[in-house]
C-alpha cells in the first residue's frame, strides 16, 4: 500500500481529520485573501460607487459602470489601445526574432556560435532600467521617441525567448529535416514547413511570457513617450492618480483594465507559463 503521507514534504494532504481539514481550509482561505484579496477588491470596487481610498470593498453593493464611463472620458480607451498595439506588435516581432535565432542556435554549427550565445546571455544583465539614460539617447538618435514604435522595436529581441525556443528546437528529431532535405527542400522551406509546425508548444511558452513581460514594461514607455497621447495604460495610471479632478473610482476602473489582460492571458495559458518558469532558462 502506498503511504500518501510521504507524497509531499509535509504530508499535509494525507491529514483529513475534521480538525485538520478545518485548519487547512482556514489557512488556504487566508492565503487567498492575502495574495488575491487586494486584486479582488480592485475588481469589485471598480464596479462600485467609490468616493475615497477608504471605501475599497470586497463585497459588491451597488453595481455601477459610472467609474468606467468617467475613465473613458479621460482617454483611458486610447491608453488601452496603445497598450494592445505595443504588446501585439512587440510580441509578433519577439516571436519572429526568437524562432529565427533559436533555429540557428539549435540546428547550425558555425564558428562564433559560442560567442553569440555568450552575447545573448549577457543581455540578460542589461535590462532597460540599468541602461535607461543612454538608452533614451539612442532612442532619440533613432527617432524612436514620441512614437509607439519606440516601445515595440526594442522588446523584439529577448534572450529568454530565444533560449527557450532554441532548447525546444533541439528536441525535434533531425531525421525529419534530413528527409525533407532529401526531397529537395531548402533551408527556408524546411524551417517553415517542418520545424515551425513542430514547435507550437514552444510558441505557447514564449507567447505567454512575452505577453506578461511586455505588458509589465514601464521604463521603456516612460523613456519613449513624449506626450500623453503615446501613454500605455500602466503609464497613464500615475497621471490619472495625480490629477486632482480624477476620482479614485476612475483610477480603480483604469487599474482593473490594466490588470485584466495579463491575468486573463496567464489563466488561459497557465500550463505553458509554468513550463516556461521551470524551463531552466534564467528569467532576465
Amino acid at each position, binding site marked *: 500500500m502506498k503511504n500518501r503521507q510521504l507524497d509531499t514534504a509535509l504530508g*499535509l494532504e494525507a491529514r483529513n481529520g475534521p480538525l485538520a481539514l478545518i485548519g487547512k481550509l482556514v489557512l488556504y482561505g487566508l*492565503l*487567498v485573501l492575502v495574495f488575491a484579496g487586494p486584486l479582488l*477588491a480592485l475588481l469589485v470596487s471598480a464596479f462600485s460607487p467609490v468616493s475615497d481610498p477608504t471605501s475599497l470593498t470586497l463585497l459588491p453593493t451597488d453595481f455601477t459602470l459610472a467609474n468606467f464611463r468617467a475613465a473613458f472620458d479621460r482617454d483611458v480607451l486610447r491608453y488601452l489601445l496603445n497598450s494592445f498595439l505595443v504588446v501585439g506588435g512587440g510580441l509578433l516581432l519577439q516571436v519572429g526574432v526568437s524562432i529565427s535565432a533559436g533555429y540557428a542556435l539549435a540546428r547550425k554549427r558555425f564558428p562564433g*556560435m559560442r560567442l553569440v550565445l555568450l552575447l545573448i546571455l549577457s543581455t*540578460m544583465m542589461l535590462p532597460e532600467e540599468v541602461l535607461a539614460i*543612454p538608452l533614451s539617447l539612442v532612442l532619440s538618435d533613432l527617432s524612436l521617441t514620441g512614437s509607439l514604435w519606440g516601445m515595440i522595436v526594442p522588446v523584439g529581441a529577448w534572450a529568454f525567448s530565444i533560449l527557450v525556443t532554441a532548447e525546444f528546437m533541439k528536441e525535434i528529431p533531425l531525421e525529419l529535416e534530413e528527409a525533407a532535405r532529401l526531397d529537395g527542400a531548402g533551408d527556408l522551406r524546411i524551417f517553415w514547413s517542418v520545424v515551425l509546425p513542430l514547435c507550437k508548444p514552444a510558441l505557447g511558452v514564449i507567447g505567454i511570457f512575452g505577453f506578461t513581460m511586455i505588458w509589465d514594461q514601464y521604463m521603456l514607455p516612460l523613456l519613449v513617450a513624449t506626450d500623453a497621447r503615446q501613454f500605455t495604460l500602466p503609464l497613464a495610471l500615475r497621471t490619472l492618480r495625480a490629477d486632482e479632478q480624477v476620482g479614485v473610482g476612475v483610477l480603480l476602473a483604469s*487599474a482593473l483594465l490594466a490588470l485584466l489582460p495579463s491575468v486573463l492571458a496567464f489563466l488561459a495559458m497557465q500550463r505553458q507559463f509554468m513550463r516556461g518558469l521551470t524551463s531552466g532558462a534564467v528569467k532576465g
Partner: protein
Amino acid sequence: MNLNRRGRLTPWLFLAPALVLFALFKFLPMWRAVEMSFHEVRPYLGDRWVGGANYQQVVTDEAFLNAIWHTLLLAVGQTGGSVLLGLALALVLEGTARRLWIVRTAVFLPTVTAMAVVAEVWRILYYPAPDGMVNGLLSWVGVGPSQFLNSPDSALWSVMTVGVWRGAPYDMMIFLAALAGVDRTLYEAAAADGAGAWRRVWHVTLPALRPAFVILFTLAAIRSLRVFTEIFLLTNGGPNGSTEVLMTLIYRLGLERGELGVAAAGSMVLLGVSVLLTLLVRLGRARAVYSGKAGT
C-alpha cells in the same frame, strides 16, 4: 560554388534580426554608458573628459551612498522575505489535489499583475488614515495606525512588503518544481527511521532544494538591485529621500537634472555588482551540478 558559402551564411541570416536589435538597444547604450561615465556630458558644447571623477562622486556623494544603502536594505529584505515566504507557501501548498491547484493559482496572481497596477492598489491599501484598509486590519490586532508610505520611518518597510508580496509567489512556483523532483524513496527511508514530518523537511527536503535556493537568492538579489518601477510609483524616493534607491536617483540625475555623466557612472556601478552576482550564481550552479545535487 556558392552553395558552401550560402551554407555558412545561413545561420547568420537567421540570427541577424536578434543581433541587430541587441546591438542597437543593449550594446550600443552599454557602450554609450561606458563612454559617458568618464565624461562631463555637455549638450551642444562637447563632452569633456573627466577621468574617474564621476565614479568618485558616486562612491563619495552622500545622496549616492544613501541610495546604495537603501538599495542594499531593500535587496536583502525583499530577497530574504520572498525566498522564506515562498518556501513556506510551497511546503504548505505542495500536492496534487485540485483545491491546492486553485489556491496556488490565486496566490500566484500578483506576479503576473503589472507592477503599475500593484503599486496603485497598494497605495490605496496603505491609505494613511485610520480607516484605510491595512490600518483597519492592523487596528484589529491593536497596532497602528501607521503612515506607511507617507512617513520616513515606515516607507521603506512598506515598499519592501509590497516587493515580498509580489515576489514570494514566484519563488513558491520554483520551489514547487524543485519539490516535485525530490526522491520519494528518501522520504520513505526517513519515515522508516522514525523521522517526523519536520525532521524529514529539515534533513531530506531542504538539502534537496539547495540548487533552487542558490538560483533564487541570486536572481532575486539582481532583480532587487535594479528596482525602479515600484519605488517610482509608490514613493518616488520620498518622503524626505527615505526610499531613494540607485535607479530612482540615476533617473532623477540623468533625465531631470541632466547630469548624464554621473548618472552613467552610477549605472556602471550597478551593472558591475549585477555581473558579479550573476557570475557567483553560475559558479554556485556549476558546483551544484558538480556535486550531483542539481534538482531543478
